[in-house]
């Protein structure tokens, strides 16, 4: 957001600090580089490459869960991996979000008949955005990220609405 261009010199804006933070958060989503299977090539590698270039949205990868805001679960999670996934999620600082990328992370995908495969990561961690496809194209991943950004920007509004209705 080029605020200075939008508002001109010496202007003043009033906003809630939380809203400002959320706007900042939405524009610097650092994801955990945690590729599990095939989807990682599309969602993490091609996405970071020059053609799709997620950097321009402020989306960048981090190696450690303690520096990450978003976890992209890109691949098939099986029962051996489930513990590691949960541990990584727990290590991420709040606020944190999860994107389930691909058919496998959403539902188990082509391997759902196999008893070792977890039928969707929402059984293990709360998921914010589901991106279907096998593998989803980087464009769909981009769309998923934009949905997440919207969700983060409108977080306070949603919370307030929930409180009112409760």
């Amino acid at each position: 957001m080029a605020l200075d261009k939008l508002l001109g010199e010496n202007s003043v804006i009033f906003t809630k600090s939380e809203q400002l933070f959320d706007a900042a958060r939405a524009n610097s989503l650092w994801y955990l580089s945690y590729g599990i299977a095939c989807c990682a090539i599309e969602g993490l590698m091609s996405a970071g490459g020059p053609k799709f270039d997620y950097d321009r949205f402020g989306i960048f990868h981090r190696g450690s869960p303690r520096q990450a805001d978003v976890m992209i679960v890109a691949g098939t999670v099986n029962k051996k991996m489930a513990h590691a996934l949960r541990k990584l999620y727990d290590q991420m600082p709040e606020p944190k979000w999860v994107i389930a990328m691909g058919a496998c992370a959403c539902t188990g995908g082509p391997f759902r008949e196999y008893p070792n495969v977890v039928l969707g990561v929402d059984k293990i961690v709360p998921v914010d955005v589901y991106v279907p496809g096998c593998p989803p194209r980087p464009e769909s991943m981009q769309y998923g990220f934009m949905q997440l950004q919207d969700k983060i920007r409108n977080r306070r509004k949603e919370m307030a609405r929930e409180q009112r209705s409760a």
Partner: protein
Amino acid sequence: MTPEELSQARITPEGEAPAIVLPKGLRRVPRGVDELATEHLIVNMGPQHPSTHGVLHILLELDGEEIIAAEASLGYLHRGIEKLAEHRRYSAVGTLLDRADYISGIHTELALAQATEQLMGIEVPEKAQWLRSLFSEIVRIASHLIAIGTYGMDIGAMAPFLYIMREREALLSVLESVTGARMMFNYVRPGGVLRDLTPEAEPLLRQFLKTFPGYLEEYHTLLTGNEIFQARVKGVGVIDRATAIAFGMSGPPLRASGFGWDVRKERPYAAYEQLRFDVPVGESGDCWDRYLVRMEEMRIAAELIEQCLDGMPEGDVMAKVPKVLKPPAGEAYSAVESPRGEVGIHLVSDGTDTPYRVHLRAPSLMNLAVVDEVMPGHKIADSVAIIGSLDIVLGEIDR
């Protein structure tokens, strides 16, 4: 000095000086050292680690910085590809096997198609054979690009990855225009291939071939000529020829060790008999050689693509095959040279429309097995260089 030795040294009776062997470069015993005991530390590398290329978990036993032992723990991506294949029709098995070695799915498909054809005695049209070779080579470049790009990233050179993805996207647009998918092609089928080259594919490929040698030069400048990169990989992770053969390695890691085995040459399949190409062979079998072999293979693969485009015959791309494939009872083995090595499919049929058993000979598994052997004695930072140079794909190892 190992902890046992140190504890031994401490319990020598008084008066006798403990026999401490000084490490190289140390002139005197540092004060307090005889009270020090070092412990071996076990470090879990993975399953989430930015440079394990997927979900590899390696247990490293460390003495300070040095690796004493390494053990790979597998199974984090086991999703039953082989078992599920037994419950799919022959034409649908390929979609599962695509997801085994997901970076170069076309080679696994090809091995499966060839095994099915062997069982059923299908004659594949000439043009389909050439298209198979053509697409094998396209995917070989795409795969080696990832291998080298991520290898640079593992070692700390971020920039080459960005350049490499640019070329990969060019290849993926060709693949997409013909097969309809960027990664999971399901293009090679028993009896031939899905469809002919589309009108826009050939110009795209020619354009790529024109620019690729220049881009290869760029990578050489960025990586090969980079002194830090050289220091990190030269002389690291040496696998000698005998070890490589004993572990059943194949592909670039085997050829880097000085053994020029290439399935394309030894047991030609598709159109490789009519194509002219060399097999690059390394000398010392270190990470540097493995890297160079891959770079050279990319250059050769580009030449092969050109030969395929020039020599492409006319004709059908698919033989006459029944809608439901029912190979007679029996078994067949077929191997192809994937970017990682010899990928083979052992197919057993019981005469029904689903296979009785599909076994995948995954080259990555054999290539990974060698880490227990080569890692000890290296520094912990070298472990990343060694794993990266083997270019493993976990989907294929765990299945």
